[in-house]
C-alpha cells in the first residue's frame, strides 16, 4: 500500500477546511487516482476547483510530489513515486505580481 500524506497550503485550506489528509492507495496507483480520491473526499466545491480533464489539473493549483512539481511529471497516469510514503503538497496561488 502507498500512504500519501497531503499538506494543504494557502487559500485551498479554506476550501477543504483541513491542514492535511492521509490517503491510502494500492501499489501502482497513479497521480490521477490520488487526485480523484482527494476530489471525492473533499466535496463538490473542491472537485470543481480541482478539475481533472485530459492530462492536467487546473493550472491554478500547484501540486508537488516529494518535492517534484506535477508540471514536470506531466502525465497524470504516471504511477506515484515509489516507496511506502508519498508527501504531496497541494497549494493554490499564494503569489502574484
Amino acid at each position, binding site marked *: 500500500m502507498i500512504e500519501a500524506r497531503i499538506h*494543504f*497550503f494557502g487559500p485551498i485550506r479554506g476550501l477543504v477546511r483541513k*491542514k492535511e489528509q492521509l490517503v491510502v492507495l494500492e501499489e501502482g496507483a497513479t497521480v490521477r487516482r490520488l487526485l480523484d480520491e482527494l476530489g471525492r473526499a473533499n466535496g463538490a466545491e473542491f472537485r470543481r476547483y480541482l478539475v481533472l480533464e485530459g492530462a492536467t489539473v*487546473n*493550472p*491554478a493549483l500547484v501540486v508537488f510530489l516529494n518535492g517534484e512539481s506535477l*508540471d*514536470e511529471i506531466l502525465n497524470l497516469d504516471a504511477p506515484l513515486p515509489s516507496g511506502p510514503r508519498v508527501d504531496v503538497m497541494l497549494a493554490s496561488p*499564494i503569489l502574484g*505580481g
Partner: protein
Amino acid sequence: MQVATAGGAERQVRTMCRLCLNRCGVVATIRNGKVVRVDGDAANPYNQGKACAKGRAGFYTIDSPYRVTRPLRRTNPRKGPGIDPGWETISWENALDIVAAKLKEIGADDPRNLWRVTFDRSLLDEIWCAAFGTSLQSLSSGFFCGNAVHPLHFLNQFAAEAVPDVPLTRYILSVGGQFGAVVHYDTMNGAFELGHNREQIKVVVVDPLCSHAASMADEWIPIRPGTDAAFLLGLINLLVNELGLYDGAFLKTFTNAPYLIGENGQYLRDPATRKVLVWDLATQTAKPFDADGIDFALLGRYQVSGGDARPAFQVIADGARGYTPEEVCRITGIPAATVRRIAQEFGEAASIGATIQIDGRELPYRPASVTWYRGLSSHKHALMNGFAVMLLQTLIGGLDVPGGLMGYHRVKYRTTEDGLLATIAHPGRVGSGPGPTNPYPPRTVTPPQSIDLFELFPVACYSRTFAVKAILEPEKYHAPIRPKMLLQRRSNMAFTGGGREIMTEVLRSIPFIVSFALEIDETAEFADVIFPDLHYLEQLESGVSGEYHTGSQPATFYGSRPVLNPPFDSPWDRLVSHDEILLELADRAGFLEDVYAACNAMWKLPPAYALKPGERYSYGELMNRALKAVHGEDKGLEWYKKDAILVKERSVEERYPGAFPKPRIHVYHEYILEAGRQVDALTRELNIPWDTSGYVPLAEWRPCPAHEPKSPEFDLYMITAKAPYHALTATGSNPLLREVGLRLGYHEIALSPEAAKRKGLKNGDWVEVETDSGKKATGRLKLTHAIHPEVASVWASAGRWATSATQGKEPLGIHFNSLLTLDDEHLDFVSAAIDSCLRVKISKLESGH
C-alpha cells in the same frame, strides 16, 4: 569594515536599498553611531555599483520625527482621512496578544478572511500566508501596473519582465515606459549601460509626455494617450505586409505562427491524435506540427477537411492590414511618414538573418528592442496592448538573443501537448518570480474563491482591482470571502489604490486592520493596531535562493543587513526583521508548526536542514538553514552576516536562451478563446454581469472610454507619469527628496502653451480639473512644450495627505488616482487593469487657490 578618520571611527556595511523594486546593492557608512552616507556597492554588478539619488538620501528617514517606535492602538472607532484615530501607546506584549487572538479567531473560521498585503516581500511572508491558509497580495500594484506586462513575458520569455540587451543592441523603441529613468527592477543597470553605449544606440521614446526617459532619447514622438496598440499594429502591418522585414525562419521553428487556424479562430487538429495541424508546402498537405521534415507555410489559404484554414501568421497579416500609416495617424496623431520611418528603422536595425560570435558560439543577432510598461498596461484593453508589443518583438526573432529583449526573473518551463512553452510555478520560492501567473494554459474558471475574484481571470496575472469591487458589492460578484482582517506592510493601498474615496470605503468595511508602519501613512491611518516597522537599513534579510540578474549581467546574490539597531524599547531594539513578529504571532495563534512545515515544503529543505515538529527555531536559524540548503554548508547565516555577496557569471545558454532550442512560443493566442468561453458560461450561470468581449486571440486597437468623451467640453486627456525623484510612496517624507520634487514642480499640472492659449490660461494659473465622470481637483499649471498638445499630466507621487508625507503641511498637487472611476466602463475584465487615461476639462479658478 572599520576605518579611522579625522571625524571619528567609521564603519561600512554592505546591504540592500529597499526603496524601490531595483533593490540596489549599497554600502552604508556609519560614523559615531549615525549613518552619514549611502553609496552604491562597487562589488555589485546588478546595479553596476551605483545608487540613485533616492537611495543615497534614504538614510534621512531613519530619525524621522514621524517615525513609529512603539506599538499603537486606536481609541477612536471612526476611521477616515482627517479623523484623529486617538492613538495610544501599548506594550509589544499587548499588541501581540490582541492581533494573535484575532488571527486565531479567523483561522478557526476561514483563514481566507485574512487579507494579507505587502509590496515588499520578506523571507517568510509567503510561507506565513501559506501556513495560515490565505494568499499574499501586492495591493499597491495591480490596478494599473504590470497587468499586461507579466503575462506576456511569462508566455514568450518565461520571465516576469524584460529589458533590451543594451551592450549589443542598436535600436530601442520605448513605448509607454521609462526604461533606465524611473523606479523599476533594472533602472540603475539600464541607465548606466545606456550611458556606456549611448552613441551606438538610437533611442526612440513614444509617450504623450516628454518624460525623463524621453528627455534623454534621440527622438521623442508624442502620441495620443491609449493609442499605443494602433501605433504598434501599424508597425507590424508595414513590416509584414509591405517591407517583408520579419524572421520567417524563427517564426516557423520557434513559434505557433505556422499552426493552422480554422474559421472559428481555433487550431485545426488531427481528428485522430488531436495534434495541431500545419500546412506542409512540400507535399501540399496538412500535417501534425511535430511531423518530420515539414516545409512550414506561414502565409496562404488552404482547404483542410472541407473548411478554410490559414496559418496563424496569415491571420496576423490580415488583421494588421487595416492599420495603414494613415489610419494610425488618425488614431494616434503620429504623422503617417513617422510611422513609416520608424517601421523601416526598427525592421532594418533588427538585422534579420545576422549572427554574432559569443563565447565561441554563433548566435542570432537581433539588435532591436521594443520596451514598454504602464503606458500600455493601465488601460481598458491592456492585454491587447501587450499582445501587440510582444508580437512586434517576436516577429523579428528578437527574444532572449544577443541585441534583443532579455527576460529576467526567470522561471522554469515545460512543453505542452501542443508543443508550446508553459512556465512552471514555484510557490513561495523567494526569487523564483511571481507565482502561477502564466496565461497559458489558462487556469480553469471556477466560482469565485478569492478576495479579488481571481478565479474569473483565467489569463491575468492578478486581479487586485476587483478586490475593491467584490468587497463593496459581494452579492453582485458572488464573493464568498469578505475580509475580516487586513494585515498590511509597505503597501500604501489607501493612496495607490483606486482613489481616496473608494479606498476609504473599502478600508472602513474591514473590521480589524493591522499595519506595520515606519511612519503613519495614508493606509496606516485606518489601522486598529500598528506595529513599528524597521527601516530597511535596520533589516537582516536574505533572498535565500534569490539571485538577481538582468540583461546579460552575471547573477548576483546579496541582501539586507542591519546597519543600525532600531530606536525601539529593549528588548525589541534587537529586532532585525518583521518576520520575527510574524513568527511570534504564529506561535501565539497556534500555527507555528504549520509555518515550519511550509518552510520545509517550499524551500525544499533536505533532511539535514529540515525543521522538526516540536522544536523551536529562531528567525536567524530559519535563515541559516535556508541559506545552507541553497548555497552549501559553508554559506549559512554567519557567512551571510560577514560577506553576503556572490557573483556568478552566467553561461551563454543562460544569458541567451532564445538562441537555443526550446518549446514554441505564441504569436497567436488561441488559448484565450476557451478561457473566454469558460468565463462567459460561469458568469452567466451565476448571473454575474461580466464583459467577455476582450477575450480575442490577436491584438487589436480598441478605444478607451476617454476617446469617446461624454461632452465636447471635456477637450483634454489627463495622464500621470512617474518622476525619478520619488519611489512609490516610500520617499514622500524624505525632506531632501521632497525639496527636489518641489523645485522641479512635481506638484504642478503640465500643459502645453498651445492648449493653454486655446483655453485662455497662463503659466502658474490655479485651475479646476473635472473629469467626464464628475470628479474634481485643483492644481497649478506649469506650461511646457514637452507634452502632447491634447494632454495634461500630473506626477504619480503628488497629492499625498498623510501628515508624515506632508510633514505637517498642506497636501501638494493632484492625487491622480482619486480622479479614476472604477466602473464597468473603465475596468478591463480580462487583465483587471483600470483605465487611467482620463478625459477632462480645465478651467481657471477665478478666486485663485
